């Protein structure tokens, strides 16, 4: 995900300090993997250099001065462009699971076991997400649903591959 454009989007509602931006970002978009301060300030200085944000105010603090950032007109245009462009759907054409299945078949190992182990792991993560959803707010529910639908798609692929293993083994070993 583009941290820069997400920051710009957050700044559209009003100017913020770097720390506030990090907190808003973590709460809304990156619950499990909070941003490092280094990433926050590197992103802000890039946005500043490109004229997408400007320093709105500098306040003295106990330590270094606290800068408040505001979005510029160019920044608003940048967010607008980003939001109006579709994301390229990932194609997953060469994923690790596929490679593992083929390698298992090539080396005479039990590919069905591999698929069973993977199914159990996918379901374990899906259970965690389902529990998190139950205790979460609407934002949490939407994020978890997105992950759950993707994992479900993986599982459907696992089932189909399991059903085709004999055919696949014949082709791979031919």
């Amino acid at each position, binding site marked *: 995900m583009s941290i820069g454009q997400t920051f710009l989007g957050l700044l559209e509602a009003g100017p913020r300090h770097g720390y506030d931006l990090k907190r808003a970002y973590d709460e809304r978009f990156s619950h499990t993997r909070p941003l490092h301060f280094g990433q926050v300030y590197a992103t802000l200085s890039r946005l500043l250099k490109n004229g997408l944000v400007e320093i709105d105010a500098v306040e003295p603090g106990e330590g270094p001065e606290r800068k408040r950032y505001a979005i510029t007109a160019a920044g608003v245009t940048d967010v607008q462009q980003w939001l109006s462009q579709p994301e390229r759907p990932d194609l997953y054409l060469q994923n690790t699971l596929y490679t593992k299945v083929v390698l298992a078949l090539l080396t005479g190992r039990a590919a069905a076991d591999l698929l069973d182990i993977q199914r159990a792991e996918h379901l374990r993560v899906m259970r965690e997400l389902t529990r998190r959803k139950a205790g979460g707010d609407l934002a949490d529910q939407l994020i978890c649903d997105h992950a759950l*639908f993707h994992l479900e798609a993986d599982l*459907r692929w696992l089932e189909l591959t399991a059903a085709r293993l004999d055919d696949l083994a014949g082709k791979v070993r031919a």
Partner: protein
Amino acid sequence: MTVEPLLVADQLTKSFGPTTALERASLQILAGEVVAVMGPSGSGKSTLLHCLAGIVAPDSGQVRYQGRDIGAMSDTARSALRRGEFGFVFQFGQLVPELTCLENVALPLRLNRLGRRAAERRAAEWLERLEVAEVSGKRPGEVSGGQGQRVAVARALVTAPKVIFADEPTGALDSLNGERVMRLLTDAARQTHAAVVLVTHEARVAAYSDREVVVRDGRTTGMERSGVAA
């Protein structure tokens, strides 16, 4: 420490004509746990559920409920077991169309000879709990699919069963309604310490379970669990 399972399927085999539906399928269910039975269409998962619930008799193998062999029971005893200890939810609610939703939920209690007023009072409590109190006076044909399925869940839970058998309970619902049914079903089961045997081919539905068992070509896999007496 080992825990005695509540319900055990031991080496079940079942054929319908030339088709083998189950082949030495085994399964153990502990009190209060939610187990998803997964597998592709035609893999034998519904037959396994029907055998576990005493609806279908296996050709060989044994089903034991609280240590008692269901196959050795008389028809009357088996029916009493199903009415008193088991609850059922199917893909299409299978509510009685001529009765109101309240009467549908009260029906299992009436069959167990509870008086009408007490049965309907308890049924009303369950409709409230399943967030469908507003449909109590309506007939099944007058309510939405999601509401009807929640009425069916209320009917399955009203007798305080020890085991709930749910066969594709969200199969006819959209994602949002399916999710609501699963949340209410599993929450209620966990609060009342009822076990749930949940047949589904949907992973998002299975994610409401504590563990899964996979049925493929009539055989079960994924039986590993600690704490169960052999």
